[in-house]
């Protein structure tokens, strides 16, 4: 491995550098037999595992077999070619958020939040908005300079638009957990279209959508300003709001050491 690619090119690690070992489990819709185990090995081979060890095979009822397979993959991963949405704004403490809003807006920043459509899962919106918060961080209700209107679950898009207008919302937060038949994507597009229709383009509130199954790079496609995925904390959302709505004269990118708790939201 040349020094330029050192640390850039990686492969999975089992117990020795470069061994490429991975584990995999799956079910095949066939009864357990020697043939079934061979079929599992064949699948693993086709997926690039070579050698593939079928370490466990268990019948589940008369028609299915569950497998655990360990094996080596030869693929290399180039981390310089990985595309992700990196946080492009500084992470602020609640105090800094309050101070920034006060200085820049001279009023409280209003946020209207809801789960739209038939989605009844308020876990996500509540984790971000409720004072209780998430992953040890207090929710946005805790921020003195943020006015939070949480409409809860099963809010229709027209209701949301109407309330956003009535509250003169600076930002609208929408949470979507249910993904069956792509409901989260359809609902989000319907929501962003409704806002575009109802507001002049320069007066639109910031549209933010979040949920565990969103692709964070899909904002433009969904017609929203930002998509937050799994693991987002209230502090990140608050910091983003400041970044977009209460910009600071002298931004100090990453003045604070970054500490991202490895927690996941849903």
């Amino acid at each position, binding site marked *: 491995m040349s020094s330029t690619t050192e640390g850039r090119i990686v492969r999975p690690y089992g117990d020795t550098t470069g061994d490429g070992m991975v584990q995999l489990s799956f079910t095949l819709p066939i009864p357990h037999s020697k043939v079934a185990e061979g079929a599992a090995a064949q699948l693993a081979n086709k997926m690039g595992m070579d050698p593939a060890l079928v370490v466990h095979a268990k019948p589940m009822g008369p028609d299915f077999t569950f497998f655990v397979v360990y094996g080596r993959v030869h693929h290399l991963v180039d981390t310089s070619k990985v595309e992700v949405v990196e946080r492009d704004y500084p992470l602020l403490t609640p105090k800094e958020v309050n101070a920034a809003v006060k200085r820049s807006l001279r009023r409280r920043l209003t946020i209207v939040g809801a789960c739209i459509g038939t989605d009844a899962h308020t876990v996500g919106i509540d984790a971000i908005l409720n004072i209780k918060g998430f992953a040890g961080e207090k929710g946005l209700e805790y921020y003195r300079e943020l006015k939070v209107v949480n409409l809860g679950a099963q809010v229709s898009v027209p209701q949301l638009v109407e309330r956003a207008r009535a509250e003169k919302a600076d930002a609208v937060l929408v949470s979507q957990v249910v993904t069956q038949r792509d409901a989260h994507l359809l609902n989000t597009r319907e929501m962003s279209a409704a806002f575009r229709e109802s507001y002049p383009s320069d007066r639109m509130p910031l549209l933010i959508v979040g949920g565990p199954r969103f692709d964070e790079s899909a904002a433009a496609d969904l017609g929203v300003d930002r998509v937050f995925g799994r693991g987002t904390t209230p502090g990140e959302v608050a910091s983003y709001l400041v970044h977009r709505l209460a910009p600071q004269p002298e931004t100090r990118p990453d003045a604070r050491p970054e500490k991202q708790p490895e927690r996941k939201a*849903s």
Partner: protein
Amino acid sequence: MTRRPTGKLDLDPTTVRHARSLARKAGRPIVTMAKKHTTVAVERATLRLAGLEGADPEGTPWVNRLLDVVRADVGLEHGVALPVWDALLRGEADDLATLAQKASAGSVRFRLPEGRDATRATTASRRQVAGGIRRIDARRKERDRLIRKFGDAPRKPWIYLIVATGDIYEDIPQAQQAAREGADVIAVIRSTGQSLLDYVPEGATREGFAGTYATQENFRLMRAALDESSKELGRYVRLTNYASGLCMPEIAALAGMERLDMMLNDSMYGILFRDINPVRTFVDQRFSRQVHARAGIIINTGEDNYLTTADAVEAAHTVSTSQLLNEYFGKEAGLEDWQLGLGHAFEIDPEVPDSFRMELAHALLARELFPNAPLKWMPPTRHMTGDVFRGYLLDGFFNLAGALTGQGILLVGMMTEAVVTPWLSDRDLALQNVRYVMNAAGNLHEDFRPAPDGFIANRARQVLAETIELLDRIVTDSDAAGDPPLLAAIADGTFGLMKRPADGGRGLDGVAKKSGVYYNPATELLEEQK
């Protein structure tokens, strides 16, 4: 169910009695209020018990069609029975179905009968609704007979598994497979959003979001499929659905008539988590529980929800409080101890020191407060992170806590919670987890006696003390409108931080104060039993 040794926590009986009397004090004014009101859903349930089924070509049930016309003509406050059977006796139609069709075409006018006409309408409606009650009684007897014939679940806790494909014809093979793998109870999760529909969808349904619509036909299809499985497996497999939301009384009636065995039915869930009007909820809830009592259905209450929105340590006492209220409301409506599947959940953050000891304390407290109730034990969801391996371990501890504290109904936790709707293999692994724990430690509760002044006993006493404090706050609460204290407390955000005023929320327009001549044969028949 009563054989389990009690008194492991050495709870002070006077304190426990005090807690119960506070729950009674909080609940009684609500019952008084509930008795004075009716709702569109209660009246539609009455029509369903009288045998009115089906829907118009647009899918609006005939019970909705008929009730809407009656309400427009004479109002809701007298109940649906007098005007409807008066119209039948006047010869407007030969039967309810025809009457509903004619009414929605605008060719019937309803009136409130008086004198002898009223007496005749009363008698006729009572006779017809009694048919529905008899059907419920027959289904209950049939359940008892099938349990005798096939055998009951082989052990406690009953293993409770969920199916939720959205398509009843996909649900059926999944449910049968789950039963084969060891499920004693199958729950069909409802489509997201059904709780806010003010009608019960009709027919077999193949499309739902994250669940399958509760309809009479879906109930019938699934019950028939599980009867087949029960026969095949030599044990009666129970079926569960949801009597909650705006149509709670109707769903309860359908469940009774189609021999469902358990129903999720919480006294405050709809108010707090679905923003359904509190008065509507309490009126609907009382009627639905009267039906469940008659049908021999076990209710499952929803206390686990408090712990998914609030911290499971800080909010532990809200669970006990809600259990006590659910018990009061349930018993008032005629449910017996064995029908009270009071809910609670394993939701403490596993990072918290001694989290498992606290889980044991809370679970044991529920067990000892309600020694004869089956108790519904709900698995971790909030702290399932997507790390399926860690999740599997957490579910193992959940199962162990269930075994140690004698839970009656164990909802099987999936390691893929918060990742995907369970795969076939997830369910199989989850059941292996349950079986291992029950096989290895199922009788450990016999040896398990927490130290009298140890961590667990003290924690349980602390939660009970906080419960009493909260109940005290509830019974002394008040609002400007002079509502019952519990309604004022709900409006203040006492539960789950959600503020739900008595005059807000969905479904309030479907509530009416009963008039002096209000008559409902279903309520009359259901209350006679007591």
